[in-house]
Protein backbone atom coordinates (compact mmCIF):
# COMPACT_ATOMS: atom_id res chain seq x y z
CA UNK A 1 0.00 0.00 0.00
CA UNK A 2 1.57 3.39 -0.99
CA UNK A 3 2.32 5.98 1.69
CA UNK A 4 -0.49 8.48 0.82
CA UNK A 5 -3.05 5.63 0.99
CA UNK A 6 -1.74 4.63 4.42
CA UNK A 7 -2.27 8.21 5.61
CA UNK A 8 -5.75 8.53 4.06
CA UNK A 9 -6.85 5.19 5.51
CA UNK A 10 -5.43 5.77 8.98
CA UNK A 11 -7.06 9.19 9.09
CA UNK A 12 -10.33 7.63 7.87
CA UNK A 13 -10.14 5.10 10.73
CA UNK A 14 -9.56 7.88 13.27
CA UNK A 15 -12.62 9.72 11.91
CA UNK A 16 -14.64 6.49 12.09
CA UNK A 17 -13.68 6.13 15.76
CA UNK A 18 -14.47 9.79 16.56
CA UNK A 19 -17.65 9.86 14.44
CA UNK A 20 -19.04 6.72 16.09
CA UNK A 21 -18.12 8.14 19.51
CA UNK A 22 -20.13 11.30 18.76
CA UNK A 23 -22.95 9.18 17.26
CA UNK A 24 -22.92 6.88 20.28
CA UNK A 25 -23.20 9.86 22.64
CA UNK A 26 -26.03 11.33 20.53
CA UNK A 27 -27.94 8.06 20.49
CA UNK A 28 -27.39 7.37 24.19
CA UNK A 29 -28.55 10.91 24.94
CA UNK A 30 -31.65 10.31 22.81
CA UNK A 31 -32.52 7.19 24.85
CA UNK A 32 -31.27 8.26 28.29
CA UNK A 33 -30.87 12.07 28.30
CA UNK A 34 -27.44 13.23 29.54
CA UNK A 35 -27.48 16.94 28.60
CA UNK A 36 -29.26 19.00 25.90
CA UNK A 37 -25.86 20.31 24.75
CA UNK A 38 -25.09 16.80 23.43
CA UNK A 39 -27.11 17.68 20.32
CA UNK A 40 -24.34 20.12 19.42
CA UNK A 41 -22.27 17.07 18.42
CA UNK A 42 -24.56 16.38 15.44
CA UNK A 43 -22.71 18.49 12.79
CA UNK A 44 -19.32 17.02 13.80
CA UNK A 45 -20.87 13.52 13.75
CA UNK A 46 -22.21 14.05 10.22
CA UNK A 47 -19.05 15.65 8.79
CA UNK A 48 -16.65 13.15 10.40
CA UNK A 49 -18.56 10.13 9.12
CA UNK A 50 -19.72 11.31 5.69
CA UNK A 51 -16.48 13.02 4.62
CA UNK A 52 -13.80 12.07 7.19
CA UNK A 53 -14.62 8.34 7.12
CA UNK A 54 -16.50 7.34 3.94
CA UNK A 55 -15.11 9.83 1.41
CA UNK A 56 -11.56 9.74 2.77
CA UNK A 57 -11.54 5.94 2.69
CA UNK A 58 -12.59 6.04 -0.97
CA UNK A 59 -9.74 8.45 -1.78
CA UNK A 60 -7.16 6.23 -0.03
CA UNK A 61 -8.32 3.09 -1.80
CA UNK A 62 -8.62 4.86 -5.18
CA UNK A 63 -5.04 6.17 -5.00
CA UNK A 64 -3.91 2.62 -4.16
CA UNK A 65 -5.79 0.64 -6.83
CA UNK A 66 -6.42 2.88 -9.86
CA UNK A 67 -4.35 1.84 -12.91
CA UNK A 68 -0.71 2.97 -12.77
CA UNK A 69 1.74 4.32 -15.37
CA UNK A 70 4.03 1.25 -15.47
CA UNK A 71 4.98 1.27 -11.78
CA UNK A 72 4.23 4.94 -11.01
CA UNK A 73 1.06 6.53 -9.64
CA UNK A 74 1.69 9.96 -11.21
CA UNK A 75 2.53 13.23 -9.46
CA UNK A 76 2.01 12.66 -5.74
CA UNK A 77 1.98 16.37 -4.76
CA UNK A 78 -1.72 17.04 -5.49
CA UNK A 79 -2.57 13.88 -3.53
CA UNK A 80 -0.78 15.15 -0.42
CA UNK A 81 -2.53 18.49 -0.94
CA UNK A 82 -5.88 16.67 -1.11
CA UNK A 83 -5.00 14.84 2.14
CA UNK A 84 -4.20 18.09 3.95
CA UNK A 85 -7.26 19.91 2.55
CA UNK A 86 -9.81 17.19 3.28
CA UNK A 87 -8.68 16.84 6.87
CA UNK A 88 -8.58 20.60 7.51
CA UNK A 89 -12.00 20.84 5.83
CA UNK A 90 -13.61 18.15 7.96
CA UNK A 91 -12.37 19.74 11.19
CA UNK A 92 -13.22 23.32 10.21
CA UNK A 93 -16.72 22.48 8.91
CA UNK A 94 -17.55 19.75 11.46
CA UNK A 95 -16.02 21.08 14.67
CA UNK A 96 -16.72 24.66 13.54
CA UNK A 97 -20.46 24.01 13.46
CA UNK A 98 -20.37 21.96 16.67
CA UNK A 99 -18.50 24.72 18.54
CA UNK A 100 -20.84 27.39 17.05
CA UNK A 101 -17.94 29.11 15.25
CA UNK A 102 -18.72 32.04 12.88
CA UNK A 103 -20.11 31.11 9.46
CA UNK A 104 -16.86 31.86 7.66
CA UNK A 105 -15.14 29.00 9.51
CA UNK A 106 -17.64 26.50 8.11
CA UNK A 107 -17.35 28.16 4.71
CA UNK A 108 -13.55 27.81 4.86
CA UNK A 109 -14.00 24.15 5.76
CA UNK A 110 -16.25 23.50 2.81
CA UNK A 111 -13.80 25.39 0.57
CA UNK A 112 -10.99 23.10 1.75
CA UNK A 113 -13.14 20.03 1.03
CA UNK A 114 -13.94 21.28 -2.49
CA UNK A 115 -10.23 21.98 -3.03
CA UNK A 116 -9.42 18.44 -1.88
CA UNK A 117 -11.77 17.04 -4.52
CA UNK A 118 -10.11 19.14 -7.24
CA UNK A 119 -6.56 18.27 -6.14
CA UNK A 120 -7.38 14.58 -5.96
CA UNK A 121 -8.93 14.64 -9.45
CA UNK A 122 -5.69 16.12 -10.89
CA UNK A 123 -3.92 12.87 -9.98
CA UNK A 124 -6.79 10.44 -10.54
CA UNK A 125 -8.13 11.73 -13.88
CA UNK A 126 -5.30 10.46 -16.16
CA UNK A 127 -5.19 7.19 -14.20
CA UNK A 128 -8.77 6.33 -15.20
CA UNK A 129 -7.68 4.47 -18.33
CA UNK A 130 -7.47 0.92 -19.66
CA UNK A 131 -4.80 -1.32 -18.05
CA UNK A 132 -1.65 -1.84 -20.21
CA UNK A 133 -2.91 -5.30 -21.24
CA UNK A 134 -6.38 -4.03 -22.18
CA UNK A 135 -4.82 -1.09 -24.05
CA UNK A 136 -2.70 -3.38 -26.26
CA UNK A 137 -5.83 -5.46 -26.93
CA UNK A 138 -7.74 -2.33 -27.99
CA UNK A 139 -5.03 -1.18 -30.40
Amino acid sequence: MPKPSIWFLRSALIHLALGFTFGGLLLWNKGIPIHPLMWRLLPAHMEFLLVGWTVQLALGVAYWILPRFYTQRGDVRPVWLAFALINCGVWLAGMGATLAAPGWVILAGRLCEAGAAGAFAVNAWPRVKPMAQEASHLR
Partner: protein
Amino acid sequence: MPFLTRLFVKTALVYFIAALLAGLLVAARPVLALPSIVAALTPVYFHLLMVGWVTQLILGVAHWMFPKFSREEPRGHDWLTWTIFILLNGGLLLRVFAEPIRTVNTDPLWGWLLALSALLQWLAAMAFVANVWPRVRGH
Protein backbone atom coordinates in the same frame (compact mmCIF):
# COMPACT_ATOMS: atom_id res chain seq x y z
CA MET B 1 -13.66 -14.51 -0.83
CA PRO B 2 -13.38 -15.49 2.86
CA PHE B 3 -16.49 -16.61 4.74
CA LEU B 4 -16.58 -13.55 7.01
CA THR B 5 -16.41 -11.22 3.99
CA ARG B 6 -19.34 -13.04 2.38
CA LEU B 7 -21.25 -12.71 5.62
CA PHE B 8 -20.58 -8.95 5.86
CA VAL B 9 -21.35 -8.29 2.18
CA LYS B 10 -24.57 -10.34 2.08
CA THR B 11 -25.78 -8.78 5.34
CA ALA B 12 -24.93 -5.37 3.86
CA LEU B 13 -27.03 -6.16 0.79
CA VAL B 14 -30.01 -7.06 2.99
CA TYR B 15 -29.64 -3.72 4.83
CA PHE B 16 -29.38 -1.92 1.48
CA ILE B 17 -32.80 -3.26 0.48
CA ALA B 18 -34.22 -2.65 3.97
CA ALA B 19 -32.90 0.95 3.96
CA LEU B 20 -34.53 1.82 0.67
CA LEU B 21 -37.79 0.20 1.76
CA ALA B 22 -37.67 2.31 4.95
CA GLY B 23 -37.04 5.39 2.78
CA LEU B 24 -40.02 4.41 0.65
CA LEU B 25 -42.23 4.15 3.73
CA VAL B 26 -41.08 7.58 4.98
CA ALA B 27 -41.90 9.12 1.59
CA ALA B 28 -45.26 7.31 1.43
CA ARG B 29 -46.38 8.48 4.88
CA PRO B 30 -47.86 11.89 3.93
CA VAL B 31 -49.28 10.54 0.67
CA LEU B 32 -50.98 7.48 2.17
CA ALA B 33 -51.64 9.05 5.61
CA LEU B 34 -49.57 6.34 7.36
CA PRO B 35 -49.25 6.46 11.18
CA SER B 36 -46.83 8.94 12.80
CA ILE B 37 -44.41 6.20 13.93
CA VAL B 38 -43.40 5.93 10.26
CA ALA B 39 -42.00 9.50 10.36
CA ALA B 40 -39.73 8.39 13.22
CA LEU B 41 -38.13 5.99 10.74
CA THR B 42 -36.15 8.85 9.09
CA PRO B 43 -32.94 8.37 11.13
CA VAL B 44 -33.41 4.59 10.88
CA TYR B 45 -33.57 4.87 7.08
CA PHE B 46 -30.41 6.94 6.94
CA HIS B 47 -28.41 4.74 9.31
CA LEU B 48 -29.55 1.48 7.71
CA LEU B 49 -27.99 2.94 4.57
CA MET B 50 -24.78 4.40 6.01
CA VAL B 51 -24.04 1.90 8.79
CA GLY B 52 -25.84 -1.26 7.62
CA TRP B 53 -24.94 -0.97 3.94
CA VAL B 54 -21.96 1.36 3.29
CA THR B 55 -19.92 0.85 6.48
CA GLN B 56 -20.65 -2.88 6.68
CA LEU B 57 -19.64 -3.36 3.02
CA ILE B 58 -16.37 -1.52 3.70
CA LEU B 59 -15.71 -3.70 6.78
CA GLY B 60 -16.24 -6.87 4.77
CA VAL B 61 -14.08 -5.80 1.82
CA ALA B 62 -11.31 -4.45 4.11
CA HIS B 63 -11.23 -7.84 5.91
CA TRP B 64 -10.62 -9.46 2.52
CA MET B 65 -8.40 -7.00 0.62
CA PHE B 66 -6.18 -5.12 3.06
CA PRO B 67 -2.51 -6.21 3.35
CA LYS B 68 -2.00 -9.38 5.41
CA PHE B 69 -1.73 -9.11 9.19
CA SER B 70 0.66 -12.07 9.60
CA ARG B 71 1.43 -15.40 7.95
CA GLU B 72 -0.53 -17.29 10.64
CA GLU B 73 -3.46 -14.87 10.79
CA PRO B 74 -3.50 -13.12 7.37
CA ARG B 75 -6.78 -11.31 8.12
CA GLY B 76 -6.18 -10.41 11.76
CA HIS B 77 -8.01 -12.15 14.59
CA ASP B 78 -11.10 -13.93 13.20
CA TRP B 79 -12.71 -14.08 16.66
CA LEU B 80 -12.49 -10.28 16.80
CA THR B 81 -14.03 -9.91 13.34
CA TRP B 82 -16.91 -12.18 14.46
CA THR B 83 -17.32 -10.00 17.56
CA ILE B 84 -17.41 -6.87 15.37
CA PHE B 85 -20.08 -8.43 13.15
CA ILE B 86 -22.26 -9.34 16.12
CA LEU B 87 -21.80 -5.97 17.90
CA LEU B 88 -22.49 -3.87 14.79
CA ASN B 89 -25.55 -5.80 13.69
CA GLY B 90 -26.90 -6.34 17.20
CA GLY B 91 -26.54 -2.60 17.84
CA LEU B 92 -28.07 -1.52 14.55
CA LEU B 93 -31.04 -3.91 14.82
CA LEU B 94 -31.74 -2.67 18.34
CA ARG B 95 -31.80 0.90 16.99
CA VAL B 96 -34.14 -0.03 14.13
CA PHE B 97 -36.78 -1.12 16.65
CA ALA B 98 -36.08 1.01 19.73
CA GLU B 99 -35.77 4.42 18.00
CA PRO B 100 -39.25 4.53 16.41
CA ILE B 101 -41.01 2.54 19.17
CA ARG B 102 -39.72 5.03 21.77
CA THR B 103 -41.77 7.76 20.09
CA VAL B 104 -45.08 5.94 20.76
CA ASN B 105 -44.27 3.95 23.93
CA THR B 106 -43.17 5.76 27.09
CA ASP B 107 -41.73 2.66 28.80
CA PRO B 108 -38.12 3.67 29.77
CA LEU B 109 -37.00 0.23 28.60
CA TRP B 110 -36.92 1.56 25.01
CA GLY B 111 -34.63 4.41 26.03
CA TRP B 112 -32.27 1.95 27.70
CA LEU B 113 -32.32 -0.29 24.63
CA LEU B 114 -31.37 2.74 22.51
CA ALA B 115 -28.46 3.45 24.88
CA LEU B 116 -27.42 -0.21 24.64
CA SER B 117 -27.58 0.05 20.85
CA ALA B 118 -25.25 3.08 21.02
CA LEU B 119 -22.78 1.14 23.19
CA LEU B 120 -22.76 -1.95 20.94
CA GLN B 121 -22.15 0.07 17.74
CA TRP B 122 -19.43 2.11 19.41
CA LEU B 123 -17.68 -1.06 20.61
CA ALA B 124 -17.91 -2.49 17.06
CA ALA B 125 -16.14 0.57 15.61
CA MET B 126 -13.40 0.53 18.25
CA ALA B 127 -12.79 -3.20 17.73
CA PHE B 128 -12.69 -2.76 13.93
CA VAL B 129 -10.17 0.08 14.15
CA ALA B 130 -7.98 -1.96 16.54
CA ASN B 131 -8.18 -5.06 14.32
CA VAL B 132 -7.52 -3.37 10.96
CA TRP B 133 -5.03 -0.67 12.04
CA PRO B 134 -1.92 -2.93 11.81
CA ARG B 135 -3.04 -4.04 8.31
CA VAL B 136 -2.94 -0.45 6.95
CA ARG B 137 0.71 -0.47 5.94
CA GLY B 138 3.07 -1.02 2.97
CA HIS B 139 3.44 -4.58 1.66
